[in-house]
């Protein structure tokens, strides 16, 4: 009897607990209803407590996070009448999946089904025409530049121009970003050292407080790198130790086709693109078809180099001794020219050799001259001794393939800098920095986009 009473009491208690559980389950706010097949376990109770985000553009594709309880490996999520794809069970109380598309704006139920049952949250996801949750490439090419700092692989450039090798660092005029970037070749870290991305300006200052406008050509003079800005028409420098930017010549934005000779900041330059120094002067390639000259001393007096013959646009320079080589662009032709700076003006203009159309950057190892083919996607070597021009890198077709010599491909190669047996090359087309080993002509991308 006692046993029966106890048994009865136990069953009453058990029944009470079950009812209490059902009552609590049905009254729990913000929980969906569910079919309960395992009443004995609260832990396994299947429920949905929240869905985020709860709205999506009608095309779906949005990853939603569902929180609740009772999620298992066999969970199926249904949105309206369609399965939610790519289900990822984080744990028994959280999962993610990707919403399907619908044909028109609508609010749909979301159901979760497991071997334990099914639970539904009504009108849980609202499909709309005004709620975007993702962006994707639809048509075109994503292989372009950017401004991200980071490692040599993740960092991006945006139409870079002149590289300058300084010890184990390489400074790059990141033209379209209005920045100077530094690539530490020892650590592989790329940092923005001067300027603010996408914000052009002419403000002098230290590092990222300064503002630049389309920096292009650069040249190293002692502890400073001098550079030209095509956008602002200024000649500026920054100190490598302090990153202090100082304007030394030019009148901001006075680029309207005229030039004037004067002391530094009163002079004007017509859209300068390149610069080199012999330690006494800066020589600047200007679109007006002149080689401008700025004294490195005093008030940085500016004038134009006096030649015996007028020239078209000098694009880039290389200096061997007192011989100043430059690429002259004249209509559809490019020519390698030379003047001897030791001569008494007017300097005699010498034609060195005809170059492929749209040749661009120059650099030298002190013996030979290297020319980039912006339009021909090759690098050529001009032997000063032999007067020969030879393609050393590039297939002739735009590409971005690291390889050796003419098996490698480059895309619109631009400015270069020679250092210790290597040429460092920026590619406008692929927004990266490459290194050419002159011993074997192997080409490797060392920073920026690999695409």
């Amino acid at each position, binding site marked *: 009897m006692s046993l029966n009473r106890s048994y009865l009491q136990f069953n009453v208690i058990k029944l009470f607990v079950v009812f209490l559980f059902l009552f609590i389950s049905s009254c729990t706010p913000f929980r969906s209803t569910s079919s309960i097949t395992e009443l004995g376990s609260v832990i396994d109770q299947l429920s949905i407590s929240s869905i985020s985000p709860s709205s999506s*553009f*009608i*095309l*779906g*594709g*949005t990853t939603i996070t569902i929180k609740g309880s009772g999620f298992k490996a066999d969970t199926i999520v249904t949105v309206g009448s369609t399965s939610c794809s790519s289900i990822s069970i984080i744990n028994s109380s959280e999962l993610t999946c990707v919403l399907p598309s619908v044909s028109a704006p609508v609010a749909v139920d979301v159901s979760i089904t497991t071997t334990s049952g099914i639970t539904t949250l009504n009108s849980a996801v609202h499909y709309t*025409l*005004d709620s*975007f*949750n*993702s*962006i*994707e*490439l*639809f*048509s*075109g*090419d*994503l292989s*372009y*530049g*950017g*401004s*991200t700092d980071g490692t040599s692989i993740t960092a*991006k450039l*945006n*139409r870079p*121009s002149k590289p300058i090798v300084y010890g184990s660092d390489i400074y790059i005029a990141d*033209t*379209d970003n209005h920045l100077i970037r530094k690539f530490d070749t020892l650590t592989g870290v790329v940092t923005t050292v001067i300027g*603010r*991305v*996408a*914000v*052009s300006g002419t403000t002098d200052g230290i590092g990222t407080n300064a503002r630049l*406008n*389309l920096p*292009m050509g650069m040249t190293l003079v002692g502890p400073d790198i001098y550079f030209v800005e*095509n*956008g602002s028409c200024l000649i500026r420098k920054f100190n490598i130790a302090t990153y202090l930017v100082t304007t030394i010549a030019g009148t901001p934005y006075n680029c*309207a*086709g005229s030039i004037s000779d004067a002391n530094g900041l009163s002079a004007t330059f017509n*859209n300068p*693109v390149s610069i080199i120094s012999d330690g006494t002067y800066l020589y600047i390639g200007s*679109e*007006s*078809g002149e080689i401008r000259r700025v004294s490195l001393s005093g008030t940085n007096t500016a004038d134009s180099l006096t030649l015996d013959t007028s020239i*078209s*646009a000098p*694009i880039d320079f290389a200096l061997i001794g007192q011989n100043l080589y430059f690429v002259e*662009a*004249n*209509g*559809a032709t490019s020519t390698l020219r030379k003047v001897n700076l030791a001569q008494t003006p007017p300097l005699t203009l010498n034609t060195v050799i005809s170059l492929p159309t*749209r040749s*661009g950057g120059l650099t030298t190892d002190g013996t030979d001259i290297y020319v980039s083919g*912006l*339009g021909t996607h090759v690098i050529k070597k001009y032997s000063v001794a032999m007067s020969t021009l030879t393609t050393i890198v590039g297939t002739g077709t735009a590409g971005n393939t690291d390889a050796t010599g003419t098996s490698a491909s480059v895309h619109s190669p631009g400015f270069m800098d020679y250092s210790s047996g290597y040429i460092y090359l920026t590619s*406008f*087309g692929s927004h990266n920095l490459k290194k050419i080993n002159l011993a074997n002509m192997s080409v490797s991308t060392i920073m920026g986009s690999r695409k």
Partner: protein
Amino acid sequence: MKIVRLFTLMLFSFLMLNSCLQFDTLLTTARNYDETNQTCLVSSDDGYLYRSYAIRGATTLGASKIEKVNINTGVATTILGSGNLNVTDGIGLAAEFKQITALAFIPGSPQKLLVGDYCTLREVNLSTLQVTTKAGASGNCASDTNGTGTAARFTSVRGLVVSGTTLLVATSNQIKQVSLSTYTVSSYIGSSTAGDTDGVGTGASITPLNMTKLGNIIYLMDSAKKIKKISLNDLSVTTIVGQTISGTTYNSQDGVGTNATLLFSNMNALSSDNNNYLYFTESQKIRRLNLTTYQVTTILNSYGQDEDIDSTDLGLARIFRPSGLVFTNQGLFVSTLYGIRRLK
């Protein structure tokens, strides 16, 4: 000297795409950097996108080609433009465009593409790909002049919308109306000089950058960094969003109506969802205007990060210089220098 400048310009054209942001400055120089960034985008009734673009790294500048993009697959085919910068009629890839700044369709006529090209209005028969100049003259962009066909003059063609049998053309300082049957051009909105004064019809002064139409209202993107509403019923021009901001300081704050600030350039565009929202591009943003509350909300912000990043989280996504933009039920398509991206 001009040849020299041109060649040098060609050689370094890749590098010089955003030094200037002022439309009026650009018009006076050969270096229309920003306009070369401009890509226009329009959708047709028969399921295609049409995008104008410039050839990157080519020997010429300016959006001079048009591609046709399948709205379902994204497959793009260039169908118009030789790449040479001229206003020269012709067929398909033999035709030449100088600087495409606007594209539009007449509703229900998916085979007739209207093109604003430099300071001309041109029409493309998409069945034959014949390009025909209908109004304006490329060699004379000094002023807006009423007239018929190529005897009329536009300072530029910055926006096109069709209203019934009339085409509305946004120029540098006016909106002209053009008969789609005779191509007779007459004054409609805006005085003869650019300005920023609300008013009625030609009593208002405006400086258009682009425009779109929703019902009987034109929404005008104005270089005064404002969005203006133009009623086609009474021709009243009313500023609804934005405020006068002097200088070029970056100022692009979300807010309501004239408390919001906008940072437009000539490469921006706007498109409505045919309901309650207006989407528009800024130099590095995609923003949305609630047409009921006038709340401006940035939905994708790339300020300070000049690159493209696809993402399922728009907070992490970036877009590189968006320009053209069109809303469809396939998503919000945004045209950049390099192609088309889709928000969905």
